[in-house]
């Protein structure tokens, strides 16, 4: 009888102790997690649950009960989170999970960032004016507005509102020289600069290109000059190819896939396909560059509807049909720009279809990673860049006291896009009705940069981005913020949704690959990102 009482008393005592422990954890979580929730993302692979912590950039694998308690803590009021967990698990499991989480918070400084502030370029880079004056990196020249092609998804088509229409203006020699003068005068703190030739179709003005290269080489003597040209390839001649090779150009040729896919969108003004001519141009380049083709000749591809895994497989067959074309990592594949003729279809389907391109690339890359299949240029180009961005991210022992303006560059430092008539735009991607940032006569308009591109843009983004778990992984920038010539928060936040979903999937793929072979992605530490 006495024994029975003792054991009952001990049971009560144990329950009381356990209650006290639970209470202690409750108090700890209340203190730490009350108010806005910390910036973090929970995600799963097939094998495990993970926590990505925004403040430290750390990724932590979690056992199931720990993951579930974290899920509760990050989505419910603390008391409810604990009560809900205890309704589905025993006390011992709670104490184990809560103790492990508390320990992780205390030793790894995770879950301590609730708001990424102060936020913005002007906050953490107060010397931006000096950088604009001294450290310009890339000058992009719109050699001509003219183009013999009329691709169905082109941003210069009349039915697309965000850009100029197809034009006939060519850049004059004096405009080109003055633009290069500007680069010279505003890159004195750099040893290396880049000049990128853009259009329309820049090869229409080949003599101007030759003059620009000659002028830049003489003016920027002593600096390394990286030259790049983006072309549709259809006007290329062996002489042009030799010239580009001689001057070590990086050449990007626009081809969307095998002939029937390419020619369904990439047509000339008469509606004729361009594939055969573009491939001929590409052949001239490969012949001229020889072994350097893999490194210096790349593709600019647009993934066109109807979107499907089958279509991607067909696009990927380009490399089987033309085995002499370069592989390598110089491949850029994108969806058509939202707002072109495919706008509604693309916007409606982009999330799901993005998964297709992403998922297709992941599956192909994973098969290579696990030794089941060979590598593929498209899968490698997409996955290696995404995985390298995660692999190379800095890990902080504690959250920094400042955060950064999503994926934006400093206007006027990273690049300046010079239109055919000598006006300065932020870059070649930004909407044509977004305010100009200067011109070749007056240089950069510091007021517009301060007021609009830093001030107003930061004010628009700060409330959203400073509370976003993906703020350290985001690649959105000014190009996704302008609609009809103005900053448009709604337009931006629509894009945010896709960005976050994309990053979440990449985190999942990244951890899945590492589960199979933890060190298998280490080679990506050395991949150069651009």
């Amino acid at each position, binding site marked *: 009888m006495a024994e029975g009482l003792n054991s009952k008393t001990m049971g009560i005592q144990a329950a009381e102790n356990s209650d006290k422990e639970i209470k202690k954890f409750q108090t700890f979580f209340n203190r730490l997690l009350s108010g806005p929730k910390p910036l973090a993302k929970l995600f799963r692979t097939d094998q495990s649950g993970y926590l990505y912590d925004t403040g430290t950039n*750390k990724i*932590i694998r979690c056992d199931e009960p720990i993951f579930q308690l974290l899920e509760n803590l990050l989505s419910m009021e603390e008391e409810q989170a604990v009560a809900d967990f205890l309704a589905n698990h025993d006390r011992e499991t709670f104490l184990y999970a809560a103790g492990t989480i508390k320990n992780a918070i205390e030793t790894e400084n995770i879950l301590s960032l609730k708001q990424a502030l102060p936020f913005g370029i002007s906050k953490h880079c107060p010397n931006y004016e000096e950088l604009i004056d001294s450290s310009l990196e890339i000058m992009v020249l719109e050699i001509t507005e003219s183009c013999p092609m009329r691709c169905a998804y082109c941003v210069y088509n009349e039915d697309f509102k965000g850009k100029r229409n197809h034009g006939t203006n060519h850049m004059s020699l004096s405009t080109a020289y003055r633009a290069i003068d500007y680069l010279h005068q505003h890159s004195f703190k750099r040893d290396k600069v880049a000049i990128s030739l853009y259009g329309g179709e820049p090869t229409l003005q080949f003599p101007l290109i030759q003059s620009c290269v000659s002028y830049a080489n003489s003016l920027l003597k002593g600096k390394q000059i990286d030259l790049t040209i983006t072309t549709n390839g259809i006007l290329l001649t062996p002489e042009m190819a030799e010239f580009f090779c001689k001057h070590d150009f990086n050449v990007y040729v626009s081809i969307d896939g095998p002939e029937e896919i390419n020619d369904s969108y990439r047509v000339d003004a008469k509606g004729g396909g361009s594939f055969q001519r573009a491939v001929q141009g590409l052949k001239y380049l490969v012949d001229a560059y020889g072994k350097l083709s893999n490194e210096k000749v790349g593709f600019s591809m647009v993934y066109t509807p109807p979107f499907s895994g089958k279509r991607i497989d067909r696009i990927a067959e380009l490399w089987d049909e033309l085995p002499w074309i370069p592989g390598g990592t110089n491949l850029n594949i994108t969806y058509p720009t939202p707002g072109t003729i495919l706008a509604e279809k693309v916007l409606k389907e982009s999330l799901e279809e993005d998964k297709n391109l992403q998922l297709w690339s992941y599956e192909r890359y994973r098969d290579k990673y696990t030794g089941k299949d060979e590598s593929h240029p498209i899968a490698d180009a997409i996955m290696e860049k995404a995985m390298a961005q995660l692999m190379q991210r800095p890990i*902080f022992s504690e959250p920094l006291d400042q955060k950064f303006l999503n994926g934006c560059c400093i206007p006027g430092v990273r690049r300046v896009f010079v239109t055919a008539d000598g006006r300065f735009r932020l870059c070649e991607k930004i909407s044509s009705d977004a305010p100009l940032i200067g011109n070749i006569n007056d240089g950069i308009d510091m007021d517009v940069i301060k007021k609009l591109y830093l001030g107003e843009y930061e004010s628009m983004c700060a409330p959203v981005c400073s509370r976003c778990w993906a703020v350290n992984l985001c690649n959105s920038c000014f190009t996704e913020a302008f609609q009809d010539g103005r900053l448009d928060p709604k337009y931006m936040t629509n894009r945010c949704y896709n960005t976050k979903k994309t990053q979440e999937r990449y985190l999942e793929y990244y951890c899945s690959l590492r589960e199979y072979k933890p060190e298998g992605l280490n080679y990506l530490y050395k991949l150069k990102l651009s």
Partner: protein
Amino acid sequence: MKSRERKNNGLGKGMELIRDGIELTGKIKGGRRCVCSPGGWSMGNQLGGCACGCFGPSSAEDNNKANFGIANPEV
């Protein structure tokens, strides 16, 4: 201590810190996200070193050197 070789820092067996990234331990000195190169914490692609003072490979090295007298061993 080599930053990327550190232990699981006493995390319980139910949690495992993924050993990746470029770990910056100690007090962060002047580093920040690269704003010259859109799209992230780009490493190694900065022409002539990064103007914005972000963590390019050299500044990550410098930071760890300053704190621990070592450079990132595997980068």
